[in-house]
């Protein structure tokens, strides 16, 4: 399904092996799926997100991302309380394809479990594991 475009691995986020990212914005954690993940899925046609107010642990599924021929669960990279979800994705799921690390964000967590951050990878580690086929 690859679009052939260069996959990006920004340094200002942390990565989970299940292809989610977390970015810290003062005391809030922002969560989305990686550029690699959106590229592998292809054209995203629907994003199902949870109700704000729910608490979830790291590793728990929080939603589903659908393309025409696939559907993938998306998991909490860190635990926390879901304080906001990106409603814009309801009508424009393609935003995740176009700007996975920006406008394609999915959740805001406040508070979040900072201890879970330690289990996540930096960009170089995540990229090397993908390049080597260790995660896919």
């Amino acid at each position, binding site marked *: 399904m690859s679009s052939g475009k260069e996959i990006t691995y920004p340094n200002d986020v942390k990565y989970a092996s299940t292809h989610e990212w977390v970015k810290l914005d003062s005391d809030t954690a922002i969560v989305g799926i990686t550029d690699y993940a959106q590229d592998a899925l292809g054209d995203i*046609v629907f994003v199902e997100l949870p109700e704000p107010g729910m608490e979830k642990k790291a590793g728990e599924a929080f939603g589903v991302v659908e393309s025409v*021929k696939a*559907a993938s*669960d998306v998991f909490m990279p860190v635990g926390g309380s879901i304080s906001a979800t990106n409603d814009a994705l309801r009508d424009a799921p393609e935003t995740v394809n176009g700007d996975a690390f920006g406008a394609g964000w999915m959740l805001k967590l406040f508070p979040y479990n900072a201890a879970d951050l330690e289990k996540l990878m930096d960009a170089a580690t995540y990229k090397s594991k993908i390049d080597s086929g260790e995660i896919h």
Partner: protein
Amino acid sequence: MSHRFIPLTDADRAAMLQRIGVNSVSDLFADVPRDAQYPEINLPSALSELDMLRTLHDIANRNAHASEYAFFLGAGAYNHFVPATVPHLIFRSEFFTAYTPYQPEISQGTLQTIFEYQSMICDLTGLDAANASHYDAATAAAEAAVMAINSVKNGRKIIVSPTLHPHYRATMRTYLEGQKIPIVGDEDTALSLDAVLDQHLDNNTAGVLVANPDFLGNVRDLKPIADRVHAAGALFIVSTYPIALGMYQPPSAYDADIVIGEGQSLGNALGFGGPYLGIFACKEKYLRRMAGRLIGQTTDTKGRRGFVLTLQAREQHIRREKATSNICTNEALNALAACVYMATMGKQGLRQVAELCYQKAHYAAREISESRQLRELGYRVVNCDSANRFEFFNEFVVECPKSVAEINRALAKQKIIGGYDLAQEYPHLKNGMLIAVTEMNTREQIDALVNALRES
């Protein structure tokens, strides 16, 4: 000698084996355990086409059928008129011998007809979206229950009306047994719907399934029920009889969230119970939890309109154990029959069929009810409101002075198939017989039924 359905000769087979590079067909089955091969299978000998047809005529002649008998039997399957357009068109090879439309470029025929079917079901029910079909109304009811469980937070049980078809209630139980979802509400089939809700409706209720017309033929405005159900946070699911919707207000009028129904009456043969057509429609907000195939409109690379299977990420071939259902093959040809039927009847025809059913059934009920002789014998029509008016569509209950099975045996001798015996499922209706009347029943047949009841 070769069999007529296999176009290969022994010379062909020999040449093919040689090309494959094996000596015999048995080399192609070398991985099948030798001792299990070619067991003695106890089957009759092959029949020629002519002998087969003779045998089939013999078997078919042992069944009473609607061309020779007057049918007053419904209970979920109805003898309606099927216009000649329906069999003619659905048995065209191009529809009939095609597969599920996986390759849309050479399946637009099937795809567009199902899109039209979906559209007409939406218009008939008043709901936003309809799928391509379920196996029948019973399985549509079960899928609706699953959908309610998945859609309602804290939804842990389903309430059914005691006057939902007994087969639908039984099927729902089987489907939901493995997931341990209780189906409640029909423990006492004599209870009214309001009493059932008083007893069971709470904020753990995922859905309430009510039939309209109900199994005993009654039609009512369900808005007050819908309001109660919605106030409890549950989904309101209505089982309908599509012919009735030719005249009655659609379930959207009383705010149904999901509508299911038996589509057999829309151009499908009685066929001793199947294949039939499970109608399934819902409000748009529940769309992505719907089971089954959906056809959507889109455009091709040249900008032309075309149709495709869509929202497939809900389905088993993609979602596997997380799919909304395991359904794959459904009842596309029956949906096509319904589509051709609705196209042929159109808005006026469907209304007229419904009114004919209504008028003839009410005539039959009046004739039974107003016959002093029948009253004295102990026959009584049950479907009356407080003002003693009949409130049914085309099916009504008659309490009888003796067992329905016995009456039906007597009727069958006069080439009449009597009504459904309610004794087992509705024992409070004393010897209850559920009589259905459609546009297929002439006044002469109805009068003959009334006379036969007098004599039976």
